[in-house]
């Protein structure tokens, strides 16, 4: 008797669970439709267009061109090099800052946060040109340094890779700090204290307890920064002085040059594919789930 009752209860629960699944699925349906219409369909269209040649017929000329001209490979290498370096320097600068902000009182942390957010709210173009004004040969920084005798001749800060990196790191930093800081704030300070009470030095407590717990925020920040960097256009165009040509810039010039969407979208498809490959390899190397469970 008791067994049957338990079974019928179980069946009822299972039915409820199923119903709940359907309800949730129903609720996510509009979102799925939106993603399908706004993201999947355009990317599919992009993919399709990349196989259309200049004369409007099916062709792989857009991909052939990328193999035949060394410029395309170099442009992709530059794109990934700049994106990786920007992400690296963002982490180098952003991690200590986010850590510092998570250790001080909320009041002071909020004041620091304003410092992070004000540049974030300023137009990207304005910030990019501001760097140009500051760092060019006869810009503020060089002029002052030369006048004070710190430099014998002006340093070439801009119109090269370093200028591009300075501008991009500055623009991307908030994207790393925001998720990282939120993550660090959520870490229970008692965990670090517990480690210390068990005899760990403060450095050991940080590396074995705090740092692993902050990994999800750090990885989220790194991912956002890296992916956003891949599509950068304005900052490398202005601060790179033509020495730094990234994929987005070539996409734009290909539309002008070939008058065809295919010549541009093939670049987009390759960029997307390589990015997905890199992220796949990265996810194999560093398992996000592992850290997710620990926190």
């Amino acid at each position: 008797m008791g067994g049957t009752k338990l079974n019928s209860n179980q069946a009822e629960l299972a039915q409820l669970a199923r119903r709940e699944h359907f309800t949730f699925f129903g609720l996510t349906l509009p979102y799925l439709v939106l993603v399908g219409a706004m993201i999947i369909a355009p990317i599919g269209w992009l993919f399709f267009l990349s196989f259309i040649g200049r004369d409007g017929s099916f062709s792989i000329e857009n991909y052939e061109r990328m193999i035949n001209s060394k410029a395309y490979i170099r442009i992709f290498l530059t794109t990934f090099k700049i994106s990786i370096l920007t992400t690296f320097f963002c982490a180098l600068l952003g991690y200590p800052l986010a850590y510092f902000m998570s250790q001080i009182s909320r009041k002071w942390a909020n004041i620091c946060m304003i410092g992070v957010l004000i540049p974030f709210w300023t137009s990207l173009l304005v910030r990019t040109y501001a760097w140009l004004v500051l760092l060019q040969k006869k810009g503020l920084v060089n002029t002052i340094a030369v006048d004070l005798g710190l430099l014998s001749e002006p340093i070439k800060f801009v119109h090269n890779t370093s200028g591009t990196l300075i501008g991009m790191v500055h623009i991307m930093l908030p994207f790393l700090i925001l998720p990282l800081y939120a993550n660090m704030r959520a870490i229970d300070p008692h965990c670090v204290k517990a480690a210390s009470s068990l005899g760990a030095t403060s450095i050991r407590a940080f590396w074995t307890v705090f740092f692993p717990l902050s990994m999800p925020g750090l990885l989220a920040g790194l991912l956002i920064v890296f992916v956003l960097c891949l599509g950068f256009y304005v900052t490398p165009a202005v601060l790179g002085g033509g020495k730094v040509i990234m994929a987005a810039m070539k996409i734009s010039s290909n539309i002008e040059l070939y008058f065809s969407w295919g010549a541009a979208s093939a670049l987009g498809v390759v960029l997307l594919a390589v990015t997905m490959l890199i992220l796949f390899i990265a996810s194999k190397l560093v398992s996000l789930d592992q850290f997710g469970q620990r926190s």
Partner: protein
Amino acid sequence: MKSFCMVKKVAVAAFLLGFASFSTASFADETLRIVSWGGAYQKGQSVGIFQPAAEAMGITVKEDTYGGISDVKLMVKSGADKFDIFSSGAGGCASGGAEGILEKLDYSVIDVSNHLPGMYSDYCAGADIFSVVAAWNTETYGDNGPRSWADFFDVEKFPGTRAMRAKVDSQLEAALLADGVAKEDIYKVLDSEEGIDRALDKIRSIKPHIAVWWTSGAQHAQLMKDGEVDMTTGWNGRFDVAKLDGAKVAYDWKTGIMDWEGYGIPKGVKNKDLAMKYIAEMMKPEYMAEFAKYITYGPTNKLVYELNLMEEARARQMPSHPDNAKHQMTLRTDWYAKWRTIAAEKYTEMMTE
């Protein structure tokens, strides 16, 4: 009380103005829309050409800016109807014409009998002439700057940083002139991949000295004004404007590569006939003379010089003034129609090496 009267006056004026514009609009529903490049250039066009020509014809002309021939292509291909006439470089028109997105201009309506030779084409009615020149910083070199392309490419005689264009346009011609090719033979040499490579190798030879690859006229003017580079290729009018603005810059017409800008009509516009008549009106010398007061881009209509519509001193600053033009070579758009994509890809390859 006084301010109230003021408000009332303004209100009445606004009402009357609104009424006036309404009534003219209803009488002359002939409106044309023209697009150009904005900045100092379009300001000169607007004040010197677009609006006076519209007034003379009794029509309304609305102006906007655009991003070049690819915008025309997008408009025509998507069936949108945004403008009737666009201002474009000869090369842009030539490639648009080859793509079949432009209306053929009717030269029985548009009078080009007084145009300088070659300054009009099937799809582009030439309106002004500009030159690509080698400009130098007079603080670095004084009066003895690079007065020829050979000087520009000679890093021993003229040590210093250079800037060149990030696009291939008129850079290969400069390189070949520096390499000793006569200006008459430039396009003969460039008419093969070997010739293009020869020009690119010349640029490669000074690549370590090229500090910036510029992408816009505003940028190369700024580079000279800020002293970021010691010499650059660029458009003469921009340097003249920068000079008025205090830039220490000079150039020699012997480096000039003349190119021209004109008007074209996108395929399938409803106001095609009116647009044709309007372009015909804009070709008159008095408008070109007026435009040249604002920026040093010379008239394509030689009547401007023959009728002395421009002050002598101003006329001497124009690329197309006979004394300046005789030193220069003229850019050929048919070469660009044939070789642009190949040359552009090779140029990018050279830049990224």
